[in-house]
């Protein structure tokens, strides 16, 4: 793996449950994700998209095979390494998961405080800027309960992006957004890839996003069944190797 491939998955297998109830969810998956790309994971419910996302995002222990994230092997990684790597990632959840007791600004600040790098004033300037970028300059001091579903999701996006992550993992990030807001968010992610080299791996069913994706990986029953690059005449329709 090189700096150009922040994510490299090799012969990955994963099971849920134990004993007779043990069920395999991922079968011998191989995948390499290029730096700065926008990769979309697709597939029907239960196909293993979310499991892949959590395995690559070091939110779940790797059981068999290998996942290299940002030049670190995740199989057997200890808690300290997982925490250190997570600080270099950005997560956007389908259910925004904002902290209900914190204002929009404070929620975004949480994305910065984890780094403990900059002073409080600089952090606040960065958080305000991130909220402005997602069109919430006038909602900074609102609690999540007083924001619409779309506004909450935009706060979650700002929180994920404000720390300038190396990789963003997103699960249906535009599901709660209207089409215009959704496109703004995806364009922002795309632009981050081009300008900063931020890599995005996203689970989505939104066809408008598929058009902007650099790569579309389709999973079925825990296996990659299609790996395509839209508008790329050289892309293959066979499982990735």
């Amino acid at each position, binding site marked *: 793996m090189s700096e150009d491939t922040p994510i490299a998955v090799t012969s990955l297998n994963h099971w849920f449950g134990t004993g007779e109830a043990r069920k395999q969810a991922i079968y011998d998956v191989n995948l390499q994700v290029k730096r700065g790309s926008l990769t979309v994971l697709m597939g029907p419910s239960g196909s293993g998209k979310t499991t892949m996302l959590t395995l690559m995002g070091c939110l779940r222990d790797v059981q068999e095979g290998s996942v290299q994230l940002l030049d670190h092997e995740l199989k057997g990684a200890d808690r300290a390494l997982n925490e250190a790597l997570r*600080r270099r990632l950005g997560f956007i959840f389908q259910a925004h998961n904002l902290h209900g007791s914190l204002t929009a600004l404070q929620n975004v600040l949480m994305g910065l405080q*984890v780094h403990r790098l900059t002073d409080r004033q600089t952090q606040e300037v960065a958080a305000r800027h991130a909220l402005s970028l997602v069109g919430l300059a006038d909602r900074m001091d609102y609690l999540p309960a007083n924001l619409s579903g779309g506004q909450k999701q935009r706060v979650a996006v700002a929180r994920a992006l404000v720390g300038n992550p190396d990789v963003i993992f997103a699960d249906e990030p535009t599901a709660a957004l209207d089409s215009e807001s959704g496109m703004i968010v995806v364009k922002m992610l795309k632009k981050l890839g081009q300008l900063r080299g931020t890599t995005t791996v996203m689970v989505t069913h939104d066809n408008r996003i598929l058009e902007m994706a650099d790569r579309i990986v389709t999973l079925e029953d825990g296996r990659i069944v299609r790996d395509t690059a839209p508008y790329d005449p050289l892309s293959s329709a066979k499982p990735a190797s």
Partner: protein
Amino acid sequence: MSRLLQWLFGRLPIGWLQLTHSRTRFAAALSGVAFANVLVFVQLGIMGSMATATLKPYGFFQANIMISASDANSMTEGGNVARQWLFQALADPEVTGGTGLYVANVSWARPTKTLSLTTYGIDPTLPAFLSPVMASKTETLQLQNAGILDMFSRGLPREEAAAIRPQTPTSFEVSGSTLTLYDTFQGGGGFGGDGFMMVSDQTFMTLFPARSSAAPDHILLQIAPGADPDAVVARLRALISDKTLRIRSYAQAAAEDLSYQQTKRPTGIIFGFGVIIGILVGIVIVYQVLSTDVADHLSEYATFKAMGYPQRFFLGIVFEEALILAILGFIPGFIVASGLLAGMKKATTLPLAMTADMAGMVFVGTLIACTISGAVATRRLAAADPADLF
């Protein structure tokens, strides 16, 4: 407050923001902690007053060694001691003097209430055995059938107590004799009676004709300056042939009396349990608040875990909440308990008071109890799994 905590912690005060997000729940949590504090304060206050009241009469006298009957667990309990042991004790070269102390309860039947007065009879011609205040009143005590009364006796109006002076004495009947009160001193109601009274040994015998001057309740001894009371006690134990007697230093007698009141008498045990129950109530309340709070925020904590926040960050939030509850719950608890103790003191004349030591002890105890609750509540943090967020 939020800014102050942010400055203190160097991060957003998430614990404070979580607690204050629901004002009603926060107020209920603080009330719970305050309630537990009040429970502990009141029980400790009563225990403290028991100690003060128990030791109070020891302050009326001055002695180095006390000889009591084997069953004399306190100054007011137990059988008599033969006066012959006083004379035998005087044979020790370092015992400089001795006297008998007589103790009994006198009832003063008043129109509204009958007062039970713990009455001490002592030889007024030996003022060295009395505290300086008492010693200044020995001339009065030498009068026939005269007594001096505890001005803080429970059930005795203050103005009436203040009116008792040599020029304006007051009298009442005791066992067919007339006892005249010429003066007062500062005592205070205890758990064994409404107040104290001091009479001469002669007057005591008049009031209690069945008692014999040859059998006091205790024998008080004084030893030569510089002599070691423990060494003298050891010699007296060897000298006095009645091995059932309790021969102790005066300080040890007071300490054993206090220990007996606090650990053997039902009242002491009950109040001791009250303190423990108060602490347990506080721990349970704070645990319930913190554990509910952790459960309510599991998905948010899981999100923070996904963002890379370490375990100590979450522990910090829970302990931040525990400390906030401890500190803010202590303040109303302290105020309410101070008022309650003052009211109880007025109603009972018991020496109940909020002391700085007690306040400090309860505050530290509250911090510890809340920290324990927080430590137990943090076990629920393990349930915050970031993989469940997707």
